[in-house]
């Protein structure tokens, strides 16, 4: 048990680190805090990475990747995360759409679409969730109908990040409403500039608008852009989700370190807060969670390095860190007492961001409740709940609207 790289890992890390040192400085600073400015930086950086063979390094070389091992990918991302780089724009394309295209697209399509995905010229988004299908993704209702060689799509998607700047999207639709829920789905990729697509930003409770609603009004998709067979879109969607990026990230935002530092300066009930035993006890609980997640991640990386596939046990990271963030933010505001409602305090805006950001974190990418189901079922092998929708024609399954 040690924290040191193997000689091979150390060599690779040095190679990455040296390259990053030389190259990160090549991209221009952001002009402002706008999304466009950030996007321009992201494109520039992906171009540089691609030219040196560091773009989407887990991909096969033929499509612009590096054929890297999982451990190399982890090391690269550890080193890259030491810099503040805008890589989020490419997560869906390179992490999810790319791999699914490799499995289901034609050779011609792969040659056409994968290289610009790898070099950052084209950005992809994911059109899965719907207003009535979140936790229960297979409940989607966006309708696709085939006429000749062309599909017509009508419906609404939601929570699509980056829809407004994406070039292409991966899309799941329902092509057969009389088949059972998981059987009538068909999967496509499409040009996001297609006529009939309307994109509206979703304003979140923290004022941000990182997501969109996407409306489909008679959007035409050639049958050649179908991925997988008609009616077998659910399998393609599952493959896509399995390729979801290695969820190494915590919630981001206020965490133990921040609140600990704050309690060293903030007065509370007659002394600096960190001297209050009730504060210390809460700090200790959060440190144990913080530390527990940190070393859980290291255990997962160790498993990766041995070639093991990371399982759904990573679900605990999001449950714990999002709830911890919410608790810390609420508690930190308590320390500031009645002034805490004004974000313009030493630490107030970070706390406010935490308190307003945590609710979405507890939901996005799987609610606390869904993740607990996943832990129970997929990690611990407990049985699924009763599924009254199993095998029932989709249009006979009860839904809110029908009642």
């Amino acid at each position: 048990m040690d924290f040191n790289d193997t000689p091979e890992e150390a060599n690779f890390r040095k190679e990455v680190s040296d390259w990053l040192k030389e190259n990160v400085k090549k991209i221009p600073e952001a002009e402002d805090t706008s999304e466009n400015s950030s996007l321009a930086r992201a494109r520039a950086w992906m171009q540089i990475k691609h030219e040196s063979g560091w773009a989407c390094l887990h991909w096969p070389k033929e499509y612009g990747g590096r054929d890297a091992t999982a451990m190399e990918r982890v090391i690269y991302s550890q080193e890259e995360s030491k810099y503040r780089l805008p890589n989020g724009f490419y997560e869906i394309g390179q992490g999810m759409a790319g791999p699914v295209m490799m499995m289901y697209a034609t050779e011609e399509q792969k040659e056409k679409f994968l290289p610009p995905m790898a070099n950052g010229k084209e950005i992809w988004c994911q059109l899965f969730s719907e207003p009535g299908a979140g936790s229960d993704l297979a409940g989607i209702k966006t309708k696709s109908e085939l006429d000749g060689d062309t599909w017509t799509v009508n419906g609404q998607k939601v929570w699509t990040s980056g829809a407004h700047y994406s070039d292409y999207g991966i899309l799941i639709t329902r092509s057969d409403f009389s088949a059972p829920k998981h059987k009538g789905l068909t999967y496509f990729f499409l040009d996001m500039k297609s006529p009939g697509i309307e994109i509206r930003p979703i304003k979140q409770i923290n004022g941000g608008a990182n997501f969109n609603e996407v409306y489909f009004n008679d959007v035409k998709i050639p049958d050649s852009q179908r991925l997988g067979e008609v009616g077998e879109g659910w399998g393609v969607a599952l493959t896509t989700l399995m390729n979801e990026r290695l969820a190494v990230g915590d919630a981001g935002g206020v965490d133990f370190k921040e609140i600990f530092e704050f309690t060293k300066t903030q007065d509370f009930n007659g002394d600096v807060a960190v001297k209050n035993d009730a504060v210390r006890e809460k700090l200790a609980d959060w440190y144990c969670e913080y530390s527990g997640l940190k070393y859980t991640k290291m255990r997962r990386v160790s498993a990766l390095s041995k070639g093991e596939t990371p399982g759904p046990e990573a679900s605990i990271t999001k449950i714990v860190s999002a709830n911890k963030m919410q608790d810390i933010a609420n508690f930190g505001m308590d320390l500031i007492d009645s002034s805490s409602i004004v974000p313009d305090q030493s630490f107030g805006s970070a706390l406010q961001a935490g308190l307003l950001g945590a609710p979405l974190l507890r939901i996005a990418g799987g609610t606390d409740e869904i993740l607990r189901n996943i832990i129970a079922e997929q990690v611990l092998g407990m049985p699924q709940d009763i599924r009254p929708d199993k095998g029932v024609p989709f249009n006979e399954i009860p839904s809110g609207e029908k009642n």
Partner: protein
Amino acid sequence: MNFEFSDEQLIMKEEVRKLLDKENSVKRNRNILEGEESFDKDLWDSLVSMGLTAITIPEEFGGIGMGYLELCVVAEELGRAIAPVPFSSSVYLATTLILDHANKDLKESYLPRLASGEIIGTLAHTEKSTHPTPDSIETTYDGGSITGNKAVVPDGDIADFTIVSAKHDSGIGLYLVDLNSSGVSKETLETFDPSRSHSNISFDKAPAIEITKDGWGAIEKLMDQSAVLFAFEQIGGAEAAMTMAKDYAQGRFAFGRSIAQFQAIKHKIADMYIALQLAKSNCYFGAWALSNDAAELPTAAATARVSSTKAFYECSKENIQTHGGMGATWEFDCHLFYRRSRLLAANIGSQGIWKDKLITSLEKSNLPA
């Protein structure tokens, strides 16, 4: 024994509720939150017309001479409707201080106008980013005027006057300052819950009228009194959030059924109900202690405050969670309650402070009731 509000009080509660429903108070909250106004003047006028600002003011001063029990039921409904009005500042804080501590002249001058809603008052007490203590007050009263800076004054830019805590030569006093007088400047603040307005106020030799030289005792008493009223607002809000969660769950279908059938949802809402009932029962005892000015008030107030703050936070937080993604959108009303829960948790002091006050009061009473 009858540990329940009287039929008359419950009818009054129902009337207030109907009014706030009819006026669509939650929608008005959103309008204020998103807009430029500091409060909803129309809604305020409706509440004034019902006589709600006059409840605790005796008839001799233009009020209707009811008691704190009536104010408690009103507070619960204002909380349920997250009403965007300066009621707590003017009624719980300013009116109570004048009633309890001002001389007859001041009462005759201010109370009838507070009762009629003609003027709005508030309290300017906090100065720093910590809970105020006698030592932390730097604002000074000297020679008939006040000098100093008060922070995060609720409804500071709406109120016509404020009561100010300030040092005098031998302690902390309370002073009344007309906010339109010379030497007063205000800065409106962006806050976590913009449906209620807050300002920083600077006083530079602003003319002031003394209310009491024993201001600290008066503030401590006021904190206990208002804690009960805030707690009723909090349980009102908590119950509204719980009901939203339950109603949404019943109408939301996933995996072939209403999500209200899932134990994860049912038990979450049952836990909201438990937190709410404990808080509500503590509020009832708070109402009794407040209306009887009982020796138990410090304990009862702290208990009501702590449990209601917890209940509103839990209910508003888990209401968002029950709604899933839509609950985290600006468009849905869930966040209005979440914001209000934080505002009310902050307004008169944090959980840590009130928990400590609770145990201190139990140590003093030497017997846990």
